[in-house]
């Protein structure tokens, strides 16, 4: 069972991505609506993992859209074959994979779109949708059996 805050830092999902919040006047917005992604010198960060980078408040890393979700995907590591299909398809880079090993979901950025479940090729699927309030342990205990081929 994954940690709900898998790989998270203090900054990840810090503020709600929502219209009408933190508004500022014309004299405070950035020139040309150009937005820097990082704090400080970012010269040598290409090889660093997300949680090792110092994202700026303009970067979506620091925002969360968790509240947009009504259903959440749950990851079952026992069935997963690390094919990376979910990682490729996720529109919000919310699949956390390290060294081609699927570790779980970034629940700060997942909007619950279900694409990962759709594209999962295993039998049974390694990702399934559960209601938002279901805890991960209960969800995993309800995992279906492998579907038998019809003879």
């Amino acid at each position, binding site marked *: 069972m994954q940690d709900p805050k898998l790989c998270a830092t203090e900054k990840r999902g810090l503020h709600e991505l929502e219209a009408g919040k933190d508004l500022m006047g*014309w004299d405070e917005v950035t*020139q*040309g*609506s*150009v937005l820097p*992604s*990082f704090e400080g010198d970012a010269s040598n960060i290409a090889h660093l993992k997300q949680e090792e980078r110092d994202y700026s408040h303009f970067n979506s890393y620091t925002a969360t859209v968790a509240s947009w979700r009504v259903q959440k995907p749950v990851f079952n590591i026992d069935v997963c074959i690390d094919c990376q299909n979910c990682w490729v398809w996720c529109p919000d880079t919310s699949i956390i994979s390290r060294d081609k090993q699927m570790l779980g979901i970034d629940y700060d950025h997942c909007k619950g779109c279900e694409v990962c479940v759709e594209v999962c090729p295993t039998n049974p699927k390694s990702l399934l949708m559960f209601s938002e309030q279901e805890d991960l342990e209960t969800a995993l205990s309800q995992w279906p059996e492998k579907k038998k081929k019809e003879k």
Partner: protein
Amino acid sequence: MAEKFDLNEREVWDGNYAASQAMRQAKVDVMAAYPITPSTPIVENYGAYVANGYIDGEFVMVESEHAAMSACVGASAAGGRVATATSSQGFALMVEVLYQASGMRLPIVLNVVNRALASPLNVRGDHADMYLGRDAGWIQFGAFNSQEAYDLALCAFKVAENHSVRLPVMIHQDGFITSHTAQNVYPLTDEAAYNFVGDIDPVDDMLDFSRPVTYGAQTEEDWHFEHKAKQHKAIMDSVPVIEEVFAEFEKISGRKYKRVETYMMEDAEVAIVALGTTVETSRVAAMKMREQGIKAGVVAPRVFRPFPFDLIRDALENVKSVAVLDRSSPGGAMGAFYNEISAALYTTPKRPLVTNYIYGLGGRDFAVQDAIDIYNEQKANADAGYITTDIQQFSGLRGPKLGFFQTKRS
């Protein structure tokens, strides 16, 4: 190391060649272009300078003017000194990206060789394309001859790239009339020109890997307005920088530019307000009027954007009758230039009489005699104390007299 280009102290250049030499001397890094008449030689010559080793730059061939300006946006966001040229239909196709360039605060320099917009198809000079870009958030300079097309192109880089401006700049010259008329041009040496323009000091450049940035963010109703207001403030605030750059240019060239040029206006009773080569032709007419005892003068915005609302009032508030000349088909309104001048003059105590002439469309010759006829009508207005003609008239048009609206003053 770039090859040395031989220049004489006095050259005979047309406006296109003059502008292309300014591009070479400013050492433009990237020019992305889709050449179009009558601006073709500007980009063609830049390409030749690159190919022949006179400049270390990149000529990017693209599939349309939309792509040309898009490539300029990319190169400018990357941090390069970027310029291109276009006209007419090409300008029209660029318009979408012009707004992107100014919104992203990219200091691109665009040489616009003004040409009429189809239909009917026409390759000659009028200001329809320039008007199409007037709300695009670009600073707009107007050259009245080849020398100015060169001088203002050099000034354009220095204004655009100034950190308190960071806005794209257009330099307008009249298609064929300026672009293809060879005249005496006195260029700066390569050293003097480059020392004046200086190296570009990029801002938010995408090739700065220590500070990755996002360009082209989406801003809906809760942010867009603030960004556009900030951009408008920036172009309004570019005035002192423009004046500073003109003053610095005068020091090295002896040639003085002002946001609004005035000729014989000290005691003028009647005035023509115009753009482009018409300004100079009208000066010839004004001198002839003065020989007849009629106090005529000429007023011309050198900087069309930011619009010199202040200096227009200063120049014209004591004139009795003003003719504003629009070289663009107004499409169902008074001329746009007329409206802007009128708005400025409405806030003066004496509110001079202001009339509108549509003229010179599709390159129709504007002769000295045409300007004299306009001055004579202004003189009649000044004497009567009200506008004696239709408020909007057409100058140099064949067929029955065409005019619209009459004054309610008497």
